[in-house]
């Protein structure tokens, strides 16, 4: 059982609050001679199905706020370049910003190994069959990694443009990455992800001469879904456009408040 969030693999949740009677059982005193009856009752629930995740996401958010950590949730299809973008960023901005990384993947630790090679603190979450990270997994990863105050935390989600859209991790910004090899109807096919993101990175622009990809069309489609979306074009291979991404990132890092 997890003492922090009360979770349990089997779903039987117990919470202990010091100084309180933890016995949740309430006894009913039934009158003598009660007969055996069956009754149907309607129980009003009115509960948001994502409530549990949203509550834990709020907790993560509070933790990030208290430590002035900028948390970013990176989402994309497999192979769009999330890990490559991180490797570049961690290397280029080393010494300027303090970083740590949570890597989400179904099976492997390949991406975590790549991040580790840059000298950055990294924790791997393997989701097994799970196709997305959730706030609960992130909460546990944070307990282990203890990110520093005023740092930037990158969370690389499982490669998938559908499932992670619904699960708030407590991040400040959600960054959706697409690459020019993916087809310009991507935003229309996966509107939820573009709707919930604040920044869209279009990667692999070095390949534009070789693939039919109408970058203006993609931007137009993405903005149809989310008028407030910022769009930055980059090539992790040539480095083109990366300064715009770095500037965006730095603009989001809040200076630590002076005591």
């Amino acid at each position, binding site marked *: 059982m997890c003492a922090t969030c009360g979770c349990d693999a089997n779903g039987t949740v117990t919470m202990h609050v010091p100084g309180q009677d933890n016995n949740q059982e309430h006894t009913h005193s039934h009158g003598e001679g009660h007969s055996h009856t069956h*009754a149907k009752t309607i129980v009003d*629930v009115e509960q*948001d199905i*994502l409530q549990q995740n949203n509550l834990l996401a709020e907790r993560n958010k509070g933790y990030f706020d208290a430590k002035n950590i900028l948390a970013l949730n990176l989402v994309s299809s497999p192979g769009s370049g999330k890990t490559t973008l991180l490797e570049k960023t961690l290397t280029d901005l080393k010494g300027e910003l303090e970083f740590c990384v949570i890597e989400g993947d179904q099976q492997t630790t390949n991406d975590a190994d790549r991040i580790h090679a840059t000298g950055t603190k990294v924790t791997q979450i393997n989701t097994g069959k799970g196709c*997305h990270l959730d706030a609960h997994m992130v909460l546990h990863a944070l307990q282990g990694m203890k990110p520093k105050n005023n740092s930037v935390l990158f969370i690389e989600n499982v490669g998938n443009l559908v499932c992670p859209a619904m699960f708030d991790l407590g991040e400040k910004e959600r960054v959706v990455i697409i690459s020019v090899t993916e087809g310009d109807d991507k935003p229309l096919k996966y509107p939820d992800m*573009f709707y919930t993101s604040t920044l869209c990175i279009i990667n692999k622009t070095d390949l534009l001469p070789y693939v039919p990809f109408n970058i203006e069309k993609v931007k137009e489609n993405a*903005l149809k879904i989310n008028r407030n979306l910022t769009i930055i074009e980059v090539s992790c291979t040539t480095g083109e456009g990366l300064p715009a991404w770095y500037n965006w990132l730095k603009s989001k890092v809040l200076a630590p408040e002076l005591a």
Partner: protein
Amino acid sequence: MHELSIVMSIIDIATKQIENSEATEIEEIELEIGALSGIEEKSFEFAWNQGVKNTPLQNAVRKINHIEGVAGCMDCMIDFSIKNLFDACPICGGHFLNIKKGKELKVKSLLVNINNKD
């Protein structure tokens, strides 16, 4: 297949609801699912059948209230129904929209069988 996580959350919510009651069985569960909630119906159905086995919801009838998407245009100040997040305002063709309905994802109620034994 995030639908499986959604089904697991529903089971969790329903189980907690009846945990401290004398309910023996959930006969019916009423859900509210918006057209823009990101739930794919076929996947949901599949995940449901997988997920509810050996849970109090195993024999429960699912009643789903589908909520259609409604958006308001911030320029024209009118509301209209939408099917997709990229739909345009029918008056001005613009995309400055405010989603007002269709994101719902809720457990509304349960119909439970109570066995009064004393």
